[in-house]
């Protein structure tokens, strides 16, 4: 479902050029749960942002469901983001003065769904993350783990096919982290493809696939063998 070929990304500032990604080749199939690991500054977030079409790339190609996203206009990219992709961030990124319900509603609003349909999807998502009783709380009134579960509810409320999670448990203690992981695994079992950046080797092992990035280059893609894919 995701195919990157020779993808490169360079950040240019007045002083320096940073090659955040070089010649990245990657194929991710529907239903995979892949962990993205690598040292800090190696380009994990950049890769995730490119996959989420939040960031452009400089060379190579990115095909989503067989179609290149290169050169797509803003409206098409936004639609893609809204319908196919869900984001989860390390720092939750909930809007502080919006209720839990209103936070989860955001992507559904932008999709232009009717109020009744929004409500139904939000309730479903709240049910899944086990926070139905807290729908009218503000994010600040919840624990970190609960907040991250709200963020997950927000990401899946639109029923995306890909979930991109950037260190989703980075700010959580181990108990909460485990709950979040279990939730993600549950979502994956329902058919959602997940790419997750993590520093935790245990988590990486639990994922079906481990992709390592070092210095902008992909290494040791344990499960993935492009030749095998193509010849199969």
């Amino acid at each position, binding site marked *: 479902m995701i195919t990157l070929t020779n993808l490169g990304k360079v950040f240019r500032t007045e002083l320096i050029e940073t090659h955040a990604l070089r010649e990245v080749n990657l194929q991710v199939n529907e239903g995979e749960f892949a962990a993205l690991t690598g040292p800090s500054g190696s380009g994990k977030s950049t890769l995730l942002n490119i996959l989420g079409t*939040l960031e452009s790339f400089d060379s190579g190609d990115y095909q989503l469901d067989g179609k290149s996203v290169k050169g797509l206009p803003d409206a098409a990219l*936004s*639609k893609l983001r*809204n319908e196919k992709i869900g*984001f989860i961030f390390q720092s939750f990124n909930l809007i502080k*003065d*919006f209720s839990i319900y209103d936070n989860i509603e955001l992507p559904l609003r*932008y999709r232009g769904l009717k109020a009744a349909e929004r409500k139904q999807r939000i309730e479903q998502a709240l049910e899944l993350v086990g926070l139905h009783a807290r729908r009218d709380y503000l994010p600040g009134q919840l624990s970190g783990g609960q907040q991250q579960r709200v963020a997950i509810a927000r990401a899946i409320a639109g029923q995306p096919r890909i979930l991109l999670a950037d260190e989703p448990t980075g700010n959580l203690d181990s108990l909460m982290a485990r709950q979040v992981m279990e939730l993600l695994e549950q979502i994956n079992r329902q058919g959602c493809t997940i790419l997750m950046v993590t520093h935790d080797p245990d988590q990486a092992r639990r994922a079906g696939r481990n992709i390592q990035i070092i210095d902008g280059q992909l290494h040791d893609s344990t499960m993935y063998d492009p030749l095998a894919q193509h010849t199969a």
Partner: protein
Amino acid sequence: MEQLFYYLKVSWFSIKRAPLPYMLTVLILSLGLGVFFSNATFYYRMNSDPLPDKSDKLFFPMLMLVPYQCSDCKPPPVLSYSNVAKLDVSTIPSAKAAMYSADGYLRQHAAQPPTPVTVRITQRDFFSMFDVPLLHGTIWADNQARDELLLSKATAEKILGRTDVVGQQLLLDDRLFTIIGVLDDWQMLPKLYDAYNRQYLNPVEDVYLPLESGYDYNYLSSTNSSTFDDADFRKLATDGRNKALHQLQYWVQLDTPAQQQAYRQFMANLVTDEKAAGRHPSAEANQLVMLRDIVRYFGGESADIKAFAIVTLLFLLVSVFNASHLSLNRYLSNQYEFSLRRALGANRSQLQMQLLVDMGLMSTFTLAGAAVIAYGCTKLMNSLWPANHLFAGWDVQLMLALAVLTLFCSYLVTLYPSLRASFGSLNKQLKE
């Protein structure tokens, strides 16, 4: 609709997040707009054309026909009775009226305390030339002396308690006059027929009296009169008519360029003939000034008002600049939320809708603030310069102009910063 409420709610939350900078932005902008608007109103009114169809057809002739030697000087701004008589012979103008102003006391009967009134002493064409509306009655049948007067609507209401008073008699300085007409509401702004000495800032007169009666009854000019011989300005009926006592303004209506040219020639011939007859020694220096140019001709344009207008404009620019700086900071601190919304699938036009609603909300607050501040400023100016109160009136057009200006300034203040925020790099804020 529901979506609009949602956008409003989002705007409102973002205001609530940092209310102080927002209030400061609105306050600064309101202040700039309010001060500018109150001053611009004044400036606009002062420079407006009260008779747009006619202001290039009404002319103010000034004759260099005086018994003194003067090379290189302007003709006197007012004419003597005999000079007006000489000009009056011409049939070129389609209308013409001489006039001056005086003060008087008006009452219904001797038992009533007298009310001071301003009196315009003039001729019948005055009313048609300056589009004076008549509510009741008629104007004088001709330019002869007669004990008939016209009243402004307000004066009729004040003295007699109603306006339908044609045929009634009144005491003007204890002389009995018959009311033959009552004017409708009328305020020529600026009062250009009376431009000399900045009289154009004053309200129109309360009472209208025939010119000949004014001279007969010795109504002395309340503005300026000059004598260039041994004329006694206190003896209007005699010296006023025969000698060089200059106190009359004279207006003629010349509808076509040909008429205007012919009239200039007529004035020139008149002065040449008089000079040949030995009745005046000066070099030819006649003037025929268009109504539209009359304030400028008399140098009545106020430099301080202009300077003040420029200062308030600069003040507005500074306000917009400051407000936009504040608003930029506000947006930069909100940029994270923009990025988040983008990540969740908002497209640019959806974000822009949000910004438009932000702008609408800011415009609404600012418009309210600006209106209040402009009102206060106008009140202040009116109390400092009471004579100018006539020029401080707002109408629908001006209010609309203020609304448009507010919208434009809010646009400047909101849009640039928000564009910067929404087209800026998307990902930075979310990565960590």
